[in-house]
């Protein structure tokens, strides 16, 4: 489905995740973050870039991966993206959330 974010029409799935990563840019990112009540800081951008890098290499995202990333520790990760850090950070980064098989 289509959604207008930062005055741009983008394609999102039922849960609001971008379907096409090419439509992601920093303005779109800040708007989605705003909808999640997250204000982007330097540290947020660092995490977003790390997640996007993992996604492009097709490596699975996990809390364990975050712990070993050297970018951030897990307590900080929860503080930056309160509630569900993996689902929120991936939404903001414009990549699919980690899923199971159902």
């Amino acid at each position, binding site marked *: 489905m289509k959604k207008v974010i930062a005055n741009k029409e983008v394609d999102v799935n039922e849960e609001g995740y971008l379907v096409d990563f090419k439509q992601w840019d920093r303005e779109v990112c800040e708007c989605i973050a705003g909808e999640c009540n997250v204000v982007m800081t330097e540290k947020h951008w660092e995490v977003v870039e790390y997640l996007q890098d993992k996604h492009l290499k097709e490596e699975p995202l996990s809390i364990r991966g975050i712990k070993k990333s050297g970018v951030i520790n897990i307590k900080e990760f929860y503080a930056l993206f309160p509630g569900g850090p*993996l689902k929120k950070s991936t939404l903001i980064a414009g990549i699919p959330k980690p899923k199971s098989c159902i």
Partner: protein
Amino acid sequence: MKNLIILGAGTSGTMMSNHLVSKLSNKEWKITIVDQYKTHYYQPGFLFLPFDTYTENQVKKEGKKFVPKGVNYIQKEIKQIFPETNKVELEDETLSYDILIVATGSKIAPDETDGLLGPLWQKDIFDFYTYEGALALRNKLRDWQGGKLVVHITEMPIKCPVAPLEFAFLADSYFKKKGMRDKVDITYVTPLDGAFTKPTCTKALNYLLKEKQINIETDFAVMEVDNEKKAIVDYVDREIPFDLLVTVPTNMGDEVIERSGLGDDLNFIPTHKHTLQSIAHDNIFVIGDATNVPASKAGSVAHFQAETLTDNIILYTKGYKLKEEFDGHANCFIETGNNKALLIDFNYKQEPVHGTFPFAKIGPLKLLKESVFNHWGKLAFRWIYWNMLLKGIPIPFVGRNMSFKGKIFDIKADK
């Protein structure tokens, strides 16, 4: 004479030995399979052991029986793979290979979580991903008087990602049958954002949790198990108390992968997701749980992979380009309790949908809907596993790539 070596005689390795023995010329190729253990386990049966549905003997057989004549079977420990010199060191000999197939699987690593192997391990904390764990849990459940049962996934990826949810559903049925469901509080704890994480499944299946009165805790990344408080604790100090914890610990590839420098930080081998060739070495192929491909770590996936991999090994021996064929196809029965089950059929791209399987309109199996038929299918699968799947006999009408026949795209997820 050239050498093809298969490491691991589990589901994947055994299937590959059966496929290849009839496809590779025995004048040109010597096939060897290595596994340190004598026993082959029917791992899907571990889900049923704790509930006394299956007996010990229904889930284990001697592994050698399933390796065909014409394949050299070695029961020894694998010390290290040397990919630069094409050698594999075993406990007391070293083998050379022209082609290596790694099928060393994955296993639980409970020592990765602080406190998990503490004083409560196998007293009030159990896993059911090992034969020993499932049996210990069975013995516990036989006398358990009730309380807080917490079913917990440590982190993804895990072997058979739906098994923990099936465990929760079967536990509901088990305690109902024993007339003690009112004494048991079941909570399902996941690091993901729901018990169902794909929009089609959330929409179609969320009723199951309500119907079975299973509480759910999502986005829970366990930091430690507090043995004194009897609680699992996450990184924002959320505590979930338990009387009985059934956990799926971190899953990792075998230590031999780490010793050989072939894996990622979970010891899974970077593998081309459509050809199953290892990314780093042309003559190493990887199958099943040992890979890092973004498919489910399940026997059904390994079964479909084995068909593509067999073709690719033949192509490789003749110097042809490999087929980029494997599509992540998985086909799994999911027990929902009360003698019913779901069936899901999906691949890398397509999420599970409604429909019939394997025949359009006829079925007889229904996709993504509970039915008694699907439950029989799951139980029949044990026979299929021992008698057809391991031996590489094709399962009629079930193709290696996902088919869109009989699929109905009618689920519109809520916004």
